[in-house]
C-alpha cells in the first residue's frame, strides 16, 4: 500500500538512486564490519609500538573534510593511484566511477564510527569470562569467537547501524572519489545534492529526504528488533 504510493511518488531515476544507496550501504557495511571488528580488537587488546598512530589513522576519515577523504582515495585508489593502478592491472578491479568505488568511499567514511562502537562494546566484555573460557581449554581465537564476539554483538550491531546510516548519508567522499555517474555512483545524497542545486529541485529533494528518513527508520527498527533478540540471547536484558 505504502509501497504503491511511494512507487508513484518517485521517478525512475530516483528509484535507481534509492536502489543504489541500499546496495552501497549494504555492501559497505558488509565488507567493513569484519575489518572493523578486527581493528577494534587490535586497538582494545593488543599492545604494540605505533598503536597510537594506528588509532589516529582510524579516526582520520572522520576528522578530515569528506571531500578531502575522497581526494585522498582518488590519489591512492584511482586508476592512476599508487594502489589503484595495481588493483586494475592485477585484479581488473576498477573503482573510479563505479558502484564498487562508491562502496569503498562509504566504507572508509563509516569505518571510524563502526570501530568506535565495536571497541566500546569490546571493552565492556568481562575479561574474567575470557580467562574462564581459556581454563576450559579454548584457545585465544576460540575464546574470541565463542565468548568475546557473542558478548559484543550489541556493539557490532550498533556499529553496523552507524555504518549503514552514514553510508546512506555519505556525499563528499563519494562525489569526489567516484563522481556522479547515474546508475553507478549516484546515490540518494548525490541525487539530493543535484536537486538542491536546481532552482526547481526542492520537491525532489524533499521526496528523497523523506525516503532517506524512512530508510533510516527502517534500518533502526530492524536493528532494534535484532538487538532485543541478541540481548535476550546473551542474557543482558
Amino acid at each position, binding site marked *: 500500500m505504502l509501497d504503491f504510493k511511494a512507487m508513484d511518488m518517485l521517478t525512475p531515476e530516483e528509484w535507481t538512486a534509492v536502489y543504489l544507496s541500499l546496495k552501497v550501504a549494504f555492501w559497505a557495511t558488509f565488507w567493513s564490519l569484519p575489518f572493523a571488528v578486527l581493528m577494534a580488537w587490535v586497538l582494545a587488546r593488543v599492545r604494540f609500538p605505533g598503536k597510537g598512530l594506528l588509532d589516529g589513522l582510524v579516526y582520520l576519515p572522520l576528522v578530515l573534510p569528506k571531500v578531502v577523504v575522497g581526494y585522498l582515495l582518488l590519489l591512492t585508489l584511482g586508476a592512476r593511484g599508487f594502489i589503484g593502478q595495481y588493483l586494475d592491472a592485477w585484479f581488473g578491479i576498477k573503482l573510479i*566511477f563505479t558502484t564498487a568505488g562508491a562502496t569503498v568511499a562509504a566504507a572508509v567514511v563509516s569505518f571510524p564510527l563502526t570501530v568506535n562502537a565495536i571497541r566500546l562494546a569490546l571493552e565492556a566484555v568481562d575479561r574474567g569470562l575470557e580467562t574462564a573460557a581459556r581454563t576450559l581449554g579454548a584457545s585465544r581465537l576460540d575464546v574470541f569467537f565463542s565468548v568475546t564476539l557473542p558478548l559484543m554483538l550489541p556493539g557490532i550491531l550498533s556499529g553496523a547501524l552507524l555504518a549503514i546510516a552514514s553510508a546512506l548519508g555519505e556525499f563528499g567522499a563519494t562525489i569526489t572519489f567516484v563522481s556522479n555517474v547515474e546508475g553507478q555512483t549516484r546515490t540518494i545524497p548525490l541525487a539530493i545534492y*543535484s536537486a538542491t542545486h*536546481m532552482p526547481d529541485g526542492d520537491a525532489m529533494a524533499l521526496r528523497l529526504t523523506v525516503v532517506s528518513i524512512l530508510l533510516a527508520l527502517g534500518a533502526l527498527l530492524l536493528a532494534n528488533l535484532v538487538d532485543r533478540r541478541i540481548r535476550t540471547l546473551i542474557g543482558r536484558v
Partner: protein
Amino acid sequence: RAQETTPTVFAAASLTNAFQDIGKLYKEKTAKDVTFSFAASSALAKQLEAGAPAAIFASADNKWMDYAEDKDLTLKATRVTPIGNSLVLIMPADKAKDVTIDKSFDWLAFLGADGKIATGITDSVPIGIYAKTALTNLGQWDKVRERIVGAESVRAALALVERGEATAGIVYSTDAAVAKNVKVVATFPADSHPPVEYPFEIVKGQDNPATKAFFDFLVGPDAKAIYAKYGFVVK
C-alpha cells in the same frame, strides 16, 4: 547601524581568487573592509532566501540570480554582468591532441573504449549544465551521456583530468588557464551554449552607501584588471 557594518558579499566559489584580490585592493584604497562568503551559487541563493543578511550576491550563472529575483530577494535594477567565461575541452597534458568541436566531431572515437569526460553534475552544477546544453545542441548528448561523469565543482572535474582519471574534461577557460598538467584541446563554439555570465546584484534592503561603494568597485576598472588576470572574459 547597517551603514557601519562591513558588507558581506555572497560570491560563487569560482570567484574566490578574483574577489579576494579585489577585496584587498579595496581595503588598500579605501581602508574599508568587506566580508566574503564563497560557496555554490545555489547554497548562497538559499541562504538569502532564509534571510541571510548579505549585501551583494555574485552568482556563477543567470539561473540562480533569476531565482533570487523571483523570490524578491535582490534588487533587479542593480543587475550587472561584468564578466563571462567560455567552455573548453581539456585533456591531460601528456595525452593531449588538438581537435575541433563541431556537429561532426566523433566523440566516441575520441574517447576510446571506456574513456570518460569529466565536468560538473549535468543537472545541477553550472558547468555541467552548460556542457549538457552544448552537447545537446551539437546533437551528441545521447551518444556521450553515459561517458559523462559529474563532479561536484569545476575544480573537482579539473582534478579528475589532471590525474588522468578522465580522458577529457569540459571546464571554463579560466580554470583551464591556471591548471597544471592539462591542455586545452578545443573551445566549444560560442553558439552551442548560452553565454556563461556572472550576474551581480545588490540584496534587497542593503543598498546603503557602504554596499554601493563596493558594488561600484566590483565593476570598476581596477576590478576588471583583476578579472582579466584570472582569465575571465571581461565585458
